[in-house]
């Protein structure tokens, strides 16, 4: 197998007692597009609406599901592997929500942004998917070509938590 290379090789590491920002590599991301019926047939129960994560399935549009599971056969669906397209950045710690609130115009309050949901929004004008994995753990799916810029932007916002 060829060597996989991270987009964040030259990123300046960040860590503090309240906050960890690391790359979370090695994931499989596959997009399935198609009708509700065909998608359900291939993937099982689907997240009800955009913004919900269920069994590692993220509904990113009415007709598109992102799956973090191993790729499956999906008759009548249209499959697009996207594992290289995104760099995954994990932000965790007691200040994680505060850092995110400095980066995107989304209400990250714990009563509003709960585990098992995600938002697609912009950071520094770049589209980013933010998945609330647990109360204080978040995964950012960033377009790979912008990953370093977003890493810099987010870890710079996190300076105050050092």
């Amino acid at each position: 197998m060829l060597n996989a290379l991270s987009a964040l090789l030259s990123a300046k590491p960040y860590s503090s007692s309240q906050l960890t920002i690391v790359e979370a590599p090695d994931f499989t991301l596959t997009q399935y597009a198609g009708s509700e019926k065909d998608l359900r047939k291939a993937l099982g129960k689907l997240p009800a609406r955009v913004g919900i994560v269920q069994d590692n399935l993220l509904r990113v549009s009415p007709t598109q599901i992102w799956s973090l599971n191993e790729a499956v056969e999906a008759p009548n669906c249209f499959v697009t592997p996207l594992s290289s397209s995104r760099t995954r950045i994990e932000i965790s710690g007691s200040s994680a929500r505060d850092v995110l609130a400095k980066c995107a115009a989304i209400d990250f309050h714990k009563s509003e942004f709960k585990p098992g949901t995600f938002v697609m929004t912009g950071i520094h004008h770049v589209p980013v998917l933010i998945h609330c994995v647990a109360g204080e753990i978040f995964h950012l799916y960033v377009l790979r070509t912008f990953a370093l810029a977003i890493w810099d932007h987010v870890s710079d916002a996190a300076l105050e938590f050092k």
Partner: protein
Amino acid sequence: MTSFRRTNKPSHIDRSKPISFVFDGKQLSGFAGDTLASALLANGKTLLGRSFKYHRPRGVIAAGLEEPNALFTTGVGGRTEPNTIGPITELVNGITAKSQNAWPSLAFDVMAVNQFLSPIFSAGFYYKTFMGPLKKSWMMYEPIIRKAAGLGVAVPDVDTARYEQRYTFCDVLVIGSGPAGLAAAVTAARSGLRVILAEQDFELGGCLLSSGIEMLEQWRKSQISELESHKECRVLKRTTAQGIYDGNLVVLNCSPQKHPAAMILEQCRAKTIIFATGAIERPLVFGNNDRPGVMLASAVRTYLNRFGVAPKKRAVIVTNNDSAYQTAFDLAEADVAVTVAEQRATLSGDLLAKAAQFGIAIFPSSGIANVIGEKQIRAVRLAGRHAATIECDVLAMSGGWSPVVHLTSHGGIKPKYIEKISAFVPGGFVPSHFGAGGVNGTFGAMAAIREGETAARAALELLGFDKKLEVIELPAMREDRAYSIELQWTVPADKHAFVDFQNDVTTKDIKQAHQEGYLSVEHLKRYTTLGMGTDQGKTSNINALAMMADLRGLPMNEAGTTTFRPPYAPLTIGAIAGRSVGAHFKPKRLSPLHDWHVANGATFIEAGLWMRAWYYEWAGNSPETAYIKEMELVRQNVGISDVSSLGKIDVQGPDAAEFLNRVYVNGFAKLPVGRARYGVMLNDDGIVLDDGTTSRISDTQFYLTTTTAQAGEVMSWLEFLLQMHWIDLNVHVTSLTDEWGGMAVSGPNSRRALQLAFPNLDITTEALPYMGVMDIEFEGVPARILRLSFSGELAYEVHCPANYTTALWEHILLRADSLGIKPYGLEALASLRIEKGHVAGADLDHRNTLDDLGLGKIAGKEKDYVGKALRFREDCQAPERWSLVGIECMEDGKRLRGGAILFAASDEIKGHGRGYITSVTWSTELNKFIALALYNGGLKHEGEDIICAFPLKNENVKARIVSPHFIDKAGERLHA
């Protein structure tokens, strides 16, 4: 000569914490809790600045951000800030402040001669002169006039501060922390909902801080401590609400104390907003009312009660309303001798009695005729029946109160005038907005508290909160006195009776504007510059508007106010910009091969957001020469180049072929699987949108590529057509620009290079012909080999998932090293394609038709495609349109240049020419400069001699029109 002193009464400064600071080079000291202005006053500094136009000596008049005069340049080097407002600048150790607009010094200002010219410098002065003697004479006068204008100095040093941003959301935003705001915030916070209280000051309490009343102070403290106990309530001090934008976006600007950032700008989306912004006192207008020592009565009270700074011995108060008596009584209590010049004829009994008790002399039906003293008030002459001259250290004036309606009006609701209080209040509120206290014209602490609570309850109700809440406890105090005011706007035109202190607008100017017909409040403002200074007329506007209304005989409501615009107070631009500036202005977009380029000597160039490898060290150190070596490599051997920035789109679905057949001018319906085709898209208007190569992967799947520049545009456009118009087509589009990296392997040895890299693969012409596509798996990674060529040589593109692009690139370089393969950059890439006559960025400028680019013939005659109808508009088909040609330089030692204008050899060199050069390169094959150009009539003129005119460099170069395909016209190399 000091006219102020510190008292030893309890106040809000911390006398145990002395603070030292520097003013105009002198070391001074104050206390924690002071503002720059209060500390300066306490140090006896009353002459603090010079006015804008006449350079009149000026002192502080206010105790808030409405201050027009006491502006300083603070900080040093990269932190130098002009026009800092003294009365709201918290005194911290090490502040350096300088007075402004005075040279050589504050006390002796040369430009003060302007004062004596003031009869000429009347309203509209500049419009009436400096027109002669010559047509462009203004250019002679302007530099001198410019120098005299401006307040502080902006230094070019790079800013060393951090400015940060935050996005916040809340249920209730309360703006202002006076009695109304505190009551509103506490009520709202008790609900447990998310509340933000924003206060511009570094202390909470608004007018309570100035009252000197113990009961109010206790109430203030208990509200604050309750607020601290509510988990979902954020209290933001030093935070100004600067503007309200559509969708209840409130811009809050915070200057935090313990934070790496100098400022934090919060974009707050509030479900409801309570305005508790209070009111600002108005000055009175009389001769020399701008002398240092003439101050707002409420400000005198604030300096006394909050900062412990009192006039030395004597104060005169001039007023048209009751509120100034609080100042009078508090001053008397602090052993200041007080005289009141009361504009009204009668006064209520309780005030008279209390005044008598304090030994305060009141002159009814009186006023100020003149102020004596230039750099500091020494005495006043009373007007009216008692024409006495009274010595004093301060003159405290009160012309009534103007509610701070600014923010309530940002959304476009005009304020309305209320006769009873002689003031404008909010003209109404949208459903999610509420007002409480001074902003509503409710000028008493008790009433303000009640209104604050009511407003909060209304906001909670709107939010659907329906539980019972405790009532706010009131301070143990008497009810408020009723507020009473009598206006006397009519003021004689006096060249020293100032209405706008900062911009030096006098009553005479207003009268003159009226005479000249600048009647509308907006004309008055623009003609006299009234209210256009850094204070935006917070103290002056209403006085001026009222005078104009009076001159016109109009009721105030009809005259109206000028438009309130954000920001509420001058707002540091760095704070608005935040962190997306300088090197981080726009995110950098990096190819998956970026790190490799860096490690291997690439110089980069910006291409939109992308950073692309421009040329490599191995070929040289300058863009002018390196690319030539890189071109030679490709023409003679084999090179490898990063093409990852191309837009790439996955098009899938049973109708994918039909879809592409519609959006491309040429046919895609019958493209066989495993083949690629060059395609061009038009906009609906028939103008070229983009081009690229698209290949068919399966019956239902295509791999579409776009130019780097248009990738986003094309993607949105395809989505638009599919989602909004052609919903019957079952097609899904997904961007693969980030998923796939790509490299071009080009040159006569490219096949050998790939064979070395993939020894088990059959890539002979039979297996992979020109425009063939082959999907492979290599070491567990899928890859796509496309045989296509931008350079005109035998060439391939290899695409693979971005995670592995570098590994694959290195693999090819390693295996083909024996051939001498090397990387080539964007400059060579762009030059090679010029030799081949491929159009790209510079030649495609949103103005070209297919035919302009020589591509008309690829469009399907029978088939329908986007843009077809409008493509055939009359002028789009005109024979004299400028279309693509090649150009060869005909003069040795000269060069062609992009942007040169083309003329036929016999033309006179003037006008618009017959075309222009779009892109130029040195041709390594032809050994001369060649170019692509657009030319009137295009290739009809092939072989003709032309002139390339470049008057900007006084150059005319002889050249010849040729085919744009400079090399390999038959395409033998491609098909090799």
